[in-house]
């Protein structure tokens, strides 16, 4: 048996065996972190594979896909493309998100019958069965679905399939089925084909397509094809290969992946804390043993290897359990994740369960090993550096550690000063790089200096409390004796609480900002229409004639491009807005600005648009119009959260003249004072044109509640964060104080021997707990408010939006109360541990 195996068996295995609960908890913490990681990676890989598989099959044989903002591509443009010699085939597709009545997500593809066969015949192994191609798409209610979906629903060709769409439940006759081999068959369960006219009836937009599928004529290269497309559709169309299109469509999954990965890291951080505490406990209990081993000739490296070996054993056990748990978790949560992604990002076809890949397992091992080794090394280094004789001495006052911490703080201060001087001396043009380096170094210096601040603060309070509140003084002694552990505990809890407070502040600021913006900008009391359904205003029927309506306010919203970015173009009746809206002006004289925009001499732009492009009132910019680039002068800069790229606001008649677009997205009703908005909304529903029954009607109040509701939902997430934070706090405090009590049993016994009352030593432990919780709560609140600043900067960088600061009182109060209640709960077990051991036994140890 090798020397290491001999030691491992006696030292590592023995420890795992005699402390099964503590070691088991640490391994379980690692396992949970690994399980989250493995399930996330496995599920996202499965979703991507399903989407790529299905899309790859559906777009097989297609060279280019063309789209053009929310308005889509119309019949005329399609015909113009068909006349171009560069293209062998041109087909328009309408894509509709729907579900079967049993809840299965389904993407309905509205296709031209001429193109239908190409759709379902080009991919390897995919074929139409039980279908009469000539007759199938002559039926307006015909549908072709995957044979596996039909089998799952207990249906067959010739039967009826009911589907929930945005305009209600529609019944289709099944006129054919698509078959495909292997996993592709499962992925295709998420798609079904219907005739174009049936699709147009659902969207309410006849003659408009979501995208155009193009096959190139022989010998035509993609570059000249793109030029031909731009000549027909203008520069605001988007041309992508099927692969690019699928990749861009699924890019939203990266957000989920990033959020889940952050959660995985948080879980592993907690696992690291468990391992740190576990190893600290082992070291506290086995300091003398370490001294004996060193005195018997074991090297520092050998001692370190013993303890690291123990941590690696923990990590390996945790990782194996975590991979198994993660695989099981992936099976159960795969469908859930696909469902969530389908609701908020893109429609995910049915996903087949899969095992984690070897790469994922290897990554999990690396994460688990690095977490456990880093945490154990952090706990172990101070012990390994001590001389054998010091290890053999039982008591330690912490003076040596305190001196080392003070030294580190002094060095940190010197480095911080040097960095400050260096920052001023940074060469011109390199300020950004110098600033970034300075921030990183200063953050590291702050990290190095914090334990010294904890020590100094603790010593200051302790000096004043020893004579009058000895229980507090002993608690502070316990905390400052292990400054690293204390700082980590307070830091982990404070960070978790800070995230709650910051989230609350940002979402409240966002909610208040959006609500006040909408409140000010929407002049009406009842709204007819929705952004996804542009229509001719006569489609709204005679709503303006409803009793009690004073004026109608028309609003057109579309996306376009300006100064190289996608932006929102909002055209409205500015004369009504002038009377009834309250725009929040950042620049521009309101009366003159309204005159100019109504007179067609300029445009309002949003604050984020002006900020992004460095524009001020009086500057000019160009928008692409059907007649070529059109110049507009900025007459006012207003607050607007419509689009991250910015918003340009025009008077509707001016927009119609310049863009030749007769559509509107909303017809809004301004009511006379005292008129019941609900009654008018009901009357407006009845007054809609027969073929525009899909147009939504809502009172402005309900509309606002609906729009701002998502911010409230976002804010409600802070409750979930709070629960997570309190769990972290409870675990941290429990582990820290239990360890503290365990390592101070002799001291507490001695205090009892010299006359400390039971309630005093209970008070000492309680103080310890409440000092941690209070410091974490205060630190968390302060940090939470500071975090609002970078959060707003991130918003600014990504969206150009800024929100005013809002005091998150609800989250702050909850965080404070939660911290105290958590502390009280977390103190129960250490106290019972303390009461279980008499002074007599503890002193005899």
């Amino acid at each position, binding site marked *: 048996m090798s020397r290491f195996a001999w030691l491992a068996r006696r030292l590592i295995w023995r420890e795992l065996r005699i402390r099964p609960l503590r070691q088991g908890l640490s391994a379980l913490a690692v396992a949970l972190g690994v399980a989250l990681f493995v399930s996330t990676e496995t599920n996202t890989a499965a979703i991507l594979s399903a989407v790529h598989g299905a899309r790859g099959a559906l777009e097989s044989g297609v060279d280019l896909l063309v789209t053009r903002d929310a308005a889509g591509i119309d019949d005329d443009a399609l015909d113009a493309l068909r006349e171009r010699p560069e293209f062998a085939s041109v087909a328009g597709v309408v894509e509709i998100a729907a579900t079967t009545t049993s809840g299965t997500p389904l993407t309905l593809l509205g296709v031209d019958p001429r193109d239908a066969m190409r759709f379902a015949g080009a991919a390897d192994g995919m074929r139409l069965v039980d279908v009469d191609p000539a007759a199938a798409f002559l039926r307006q209610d015909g549908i072709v679905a995957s044979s596996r979906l039909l089998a799952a629903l207990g249906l067959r060709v010739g039967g009826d399939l009911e589907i929930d769409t945005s305009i209600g439940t529609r019944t289709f006759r099944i006129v054919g089925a698509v078959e495909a081999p292997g996993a592709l068959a499962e992925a295709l369960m998420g798609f079904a084909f219907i005739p174009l006219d049936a699709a147009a009836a659902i969207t309410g937009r006849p003659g408009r397509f979501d995208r155009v599928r193009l096959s190139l004529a022989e010998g035509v290269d993609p570059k000249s094809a793109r030029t031909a497309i731009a000549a027909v559709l203008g520069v605001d169309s988007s041309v992508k290969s099927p692969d690019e299109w699928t990749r861009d469509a699924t890019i939203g999954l990266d957000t989920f992946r990033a959020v889940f990965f952050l959660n995985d890291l948080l879980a592993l951080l907690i696992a690291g804390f468990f391992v740190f505490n576990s190893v600290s406990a082992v070291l506290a209990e086995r300091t003398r043993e370490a001294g004996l081993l060193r005195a018997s000739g074991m090297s520092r490296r050998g001692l370190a290897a013993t303890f690291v070996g123990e941590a690696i054993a923990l990590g390996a056990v945790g990782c194996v359990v975590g991979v198994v748990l993660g695989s099981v978790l992936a099976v159960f949560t795969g469908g859930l994740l696909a469902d969530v992604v389908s609701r908020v990002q893109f429609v995910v076809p049915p996903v087949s369960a899969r095992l984690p890949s070897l790469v994922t397992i290897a990554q999990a091992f690396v994460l688990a090993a690095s977490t456990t080794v880093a945490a154990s090394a952090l706990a172990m280094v101070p012990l390994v550096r001590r001389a054998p004789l010091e290890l053999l*001495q039982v*008591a*330690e*006052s*912490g*003076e040596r550690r305190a001196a080392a911490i003070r030294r580190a703080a002094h060095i940190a201060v010197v480095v911080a000063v040097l960095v400050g001087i260096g920052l001023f001396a940074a060469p011109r043009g390199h300020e950004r790089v110098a600033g970034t380096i300075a921030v990183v170094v200063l953050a590291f210096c702050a990290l190095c200096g914090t334990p010294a601040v904890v020590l100094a603060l603790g010593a200051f309070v302790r000096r004043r409390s*020893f*004579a*009058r509140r*000895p229980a507090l003084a002993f608690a502070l*002694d316990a905390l400052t*004796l292990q400054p690293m552990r204390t700082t980590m505990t307070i830091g982990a809890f404070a960070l978790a609480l800070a995230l709650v407070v910051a989230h609350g502040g940002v979402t409240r600021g966002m909610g208040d900002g959006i609500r006040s913006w909408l409140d000010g900008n929407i002049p009406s009391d009842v709204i007819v229409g929705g952004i996804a359904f542009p229509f001719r205003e006569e489609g709204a029927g005679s709503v303006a004639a409803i009793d009690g309506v004073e004026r109608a306010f028309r609003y057109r919203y579309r996306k376009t491009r300006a100064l190289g970015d996608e932006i929102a173009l909002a055209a409205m009746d500015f004369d009504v807005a002038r009377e009834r809206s309250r725009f929040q002006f950042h620049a521009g004289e309101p009366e003159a600005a309204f005159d100019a925009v109504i007179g067609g001499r300029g445009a309002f732009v949003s604050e984020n648009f002006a900020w992004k492009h460095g524009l001020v009132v009086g500057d000019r910019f160009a928008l692409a119009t059907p007649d070529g680039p059109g110049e507009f002068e900025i007459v006012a800069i207003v607050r607007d959260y419509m689009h991250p790229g910015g918003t340009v606001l025009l008077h509707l008649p001016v927009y119609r003249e310049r863009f030749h677009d007769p559509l509107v997205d909303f017809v809004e009703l301004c009511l006379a004072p005292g008129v019941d908005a609900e009654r008018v909304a009901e009357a407006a529903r009845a007054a809609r044109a027969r073929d525009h029954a899909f147009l939504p009607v809502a009172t402005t109040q309900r509309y606002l509640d609906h729009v701002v509701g998502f911010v409230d939902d976002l804010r409600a997430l802070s409750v979930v964060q709070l629960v997570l934070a309190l769990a972290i706090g409870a675990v941290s405090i429990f582990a820290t104080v239990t360890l503290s009590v365990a390592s101070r049993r*002799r*001291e507490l016994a*001695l*205090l*009892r*021997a*010299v*006359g*400390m*009352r*039971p*309630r*005093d030593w209970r008070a000492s432990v309680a103080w310890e707990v409440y000092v941690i919780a209070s410091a974490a709560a205060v630190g968390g609140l302060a940090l939470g408010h500071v975090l609002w600043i970078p959060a707003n900067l991130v918003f600014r960088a990504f969206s150009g939006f800024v929100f005013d600061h809002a005091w998150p009182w609800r989250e702050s109060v909850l965080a404070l109360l939660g911290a105290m209640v958590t502390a009280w709960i977390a103190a129960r077990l250490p106290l019972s541990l303390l009461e279980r051991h*008499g*002074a*007599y036994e503890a*002193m005899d140890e």
Partner: protein
Amino acid sequence: MPPVVLQLRGVSRVFAGGSEPIVAVDGIDAEFLAGTFTAILGRSGSGKSTLLHLCASLDRPSSGAVIVDGIDLATQDDDALARLRRTAIGLVFQFFNLMPQLSIEENALLPIVLERAPTGADLARLAALIERLGLSSRRTHRPERLSGGERQRAALARALMPSPRLLLADEPTGALDSTNATAIARWLRDLAHDDGVCVLAVTHDERVAALADSVLRLDDGRIVGIESRRGTTAP
């Protein structure tokens, strides 16, 4: 005759262990007077330390009564016993048992601080005691920087700070060299004779026993001999 500070009436302590119980202290009767220094001698396992812990109220007898200053410890709750330990009983241990994070001054002040906020008189007494024990230059130091003899003197300072009527010492010279051991033993004797404290010291050290007024010998938890020079009686 000086008053009785400590009375033991049929005190026994039985521990449950293995197949049969272990009798550590077996029906001891004794009285200890103020101003006397008694050494308790016996081989390892004879019940010396257990007896001392019973006298210190750190443990409760299985039967019999321990009476300190007229108070039967069995009638007292935890709070009352804690109060007794910090006001009437001083404890000195073989391995000092000083609080490592407290300075010598703070260690000595501990029983007072646990009772109430220290007064000017307390601080004056602390200064005098530290001076008397030769620790003036060490008063702000932590225990880890002191020698064994200094640590035991610091422990003595802590035990004496509340002016106890009863001082219990468990092998007070066990971890010291002969010079320091003799010095500590003299301290204990002087405390008894000069300050009227009732001092009980468990020891193996014949030099300590030689300075005691009485020597009480234990074997198997029973008193097997008393050499009474002054003030100790056993019925």
